[in-house]
């Protein structure tokens, strides 16, 4: 099986600002990759390029064997934006089943199961406007999962979620990996990054380093990822 995602020389300019500069990497299927870096380093731009909502200034991305954008892959990608993009007047169930039907999933069971997974079964019929930030984040994740995608693109999925549920999310991500689902998520939290199989360190739109957390630590000869990140960032400038 080929890589789930491969990116070659990807660059993106917004006017005079270069949000992403000559980034190349490949993502093996069935693993969780973390895009790690401070705010404004290009994580969200990279995710939106992989989704095909942005057109690259240079380079190309191939997702699940097809060049981006491809209508055929749209159906098997799940996307969770940074802000929980939901319809606040609608209930959790209505939000999830709306996105489910856009992906061609019409089974009530799929919706119920996904809601149970994010532990919202008991609040499924309350309007999202009454939910806390963390609960909205969970509805948003449910909307990205309900059609059982083969690739999940999650932009800061664990922001605002309490530690107990964060652990539950990671357990679930592991289970999805075991089922062959590839996950690419962005984060700026270093300790969370330890849980990813591999990491892509980004700063100022440039790829600093790529590897497993252990590899990155030993390459930089540091004991924590945070120190490793600083070491790579220092080398880059």
């Amino acid at each position, binding site marked *: 099986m080929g890589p789930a995602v491969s990116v070659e020389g990807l660059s*993106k300019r*917004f006017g005079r600002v270069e949000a992403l500069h000559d980034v190349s990497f490949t993502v093996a299927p069935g693993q969780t990759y973390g895009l790690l870096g401070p705010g404004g380093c290009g994580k969200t731009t990279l995710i939106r390029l992989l*989704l*095909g*909502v*942005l*057109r690259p200034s240079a380079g190309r991305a191939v997702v699940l064997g097809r060049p981006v*954008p491809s*209508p055929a892959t*749209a*159906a098997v*990608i799940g*996307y969770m*934006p940074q*802000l929980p*993009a*939901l*319809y606040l*007047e*609608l209930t959790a169930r*209505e939000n999830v089943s*709306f*996105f489910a*039907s*856009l*992906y*061609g999933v*019409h089974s009530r069971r799929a919706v119920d199961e996904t809601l149970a997974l994010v532990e919202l079964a008991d609040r499924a019929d309350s*309007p999202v406007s009454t939910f806390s930030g963390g609960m909205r984040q969970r509805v948003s994740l449910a*909307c990205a999962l309900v059609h059982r995608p083969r690739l999940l693109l999650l932009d800061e999925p664990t922001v605002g979620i309490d530690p107990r549920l964060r652990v539950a999310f990671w357990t679930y991500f592991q289970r999805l990996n075991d089922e062959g689902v590839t996950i690419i998520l962005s984060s700026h939290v270093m300790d969370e990054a330890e849980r990813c199989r591999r990491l892509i360190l980004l700063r100022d739109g440039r790829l600093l380093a790529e590897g497993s957390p252990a590899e990155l630590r030993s390459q930089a000869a540091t004991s924590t990822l945070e120190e490793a990140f600083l070491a790579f960032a220092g080398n880059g400038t």
Partner: protein
Amino acid sequence: MSAARTWAVTLRIVRQFRRDPRTLVLLFAVPIVVILLVGYLLRTSSGGIKLGFVEETGGAAAPALGALGQTLSEAGVTSYHLSRAEAEEQVEGGELDGAIIVSPADQGAAISILLEGSNPQRSKAILRIARQVSLVLSTSSALPQALPEESDLSVTYYYGGPDFDTIDFQAPPLIGFFAFFFVFLLTTVSFLRERTAGTLERLMVTPTTRAELVLGYVAGFGIFAVLQAMVILLVTVFVLQVEYAGNLALVLLLVVAVTVGAANLGIFLSTFARTELQAVQFIPIVIVPQGLLSGVIWSIDTFPRWLQGVAHVLPLTYSNEALRDVMIRGRGLLDEGVGLNFLALVGFAAFFVVIASMTLRRQVG
């Protein structure tokens, strides 16, 4: 093209509406209140005039004035008989809108008029009455009756009828106007919300196509626009008792054509607003000129030439003419006026669909 996805978008809009009672009130109660008010005001605008008669001919003009007073009271004008001094005082004090003084002259009688003068409509009405008085008095020693009765004249109405009021002329366009106004406002705001909340991006990365999204939106808002049109129609026909000669299905078809245009214009313009306040700022640009120039209140053929040109690039101009043709004149879709105006509406709708779709590209930047 998937009907299921289009339906999902439609169902979502219907659900959002159901959870939003304020919008429902806006959609149904506001047009009813406005149309009832307009109807009430148009029917009573000629009334309420208080007019004094000063008769100084020693009773010679009294029978004629008495008969005229009778006719006037039926038209809602209250008349009083008083002395010149009283009349002057009361007109100046504003208790009377005007007074008509009949004084003796060499041959018959002379008429002079006192006007309070601040309300030009009432002043004009009183001048008209004064002309009638002079007509009556000049021909009258022998003619005690005020005016030739309408029934004495031979009148043929091609459309409308003797009981036809201004509201009968203005109710049909109001149906199109309200459909356009609310659908435009609601799509602009809800599309803006989709953009700012990020749900639009989320929609665009699903397999949903632009056509499915636009069609779902049009159907969702179209359902409410058609319901609104039926409610307005019921109120105008049964409460205001407006004359109605038309074909309901054709009225609704015209409303749908208006709705498709309005929804897509809203989607297009929502791109140019960042906040809901900015979206509301499109109302004076898009809605007000159409309210003034599309012939809802004033007929377009009375406009100067250049304004007529402007009126003909406004979609509501065509819906107004078509709705009047259908509702007042009872014409059908195959009659020339209705058919061409309907085609113009379809043309506008198609144009707005195209420009709206251009703003909905999957890829940006």
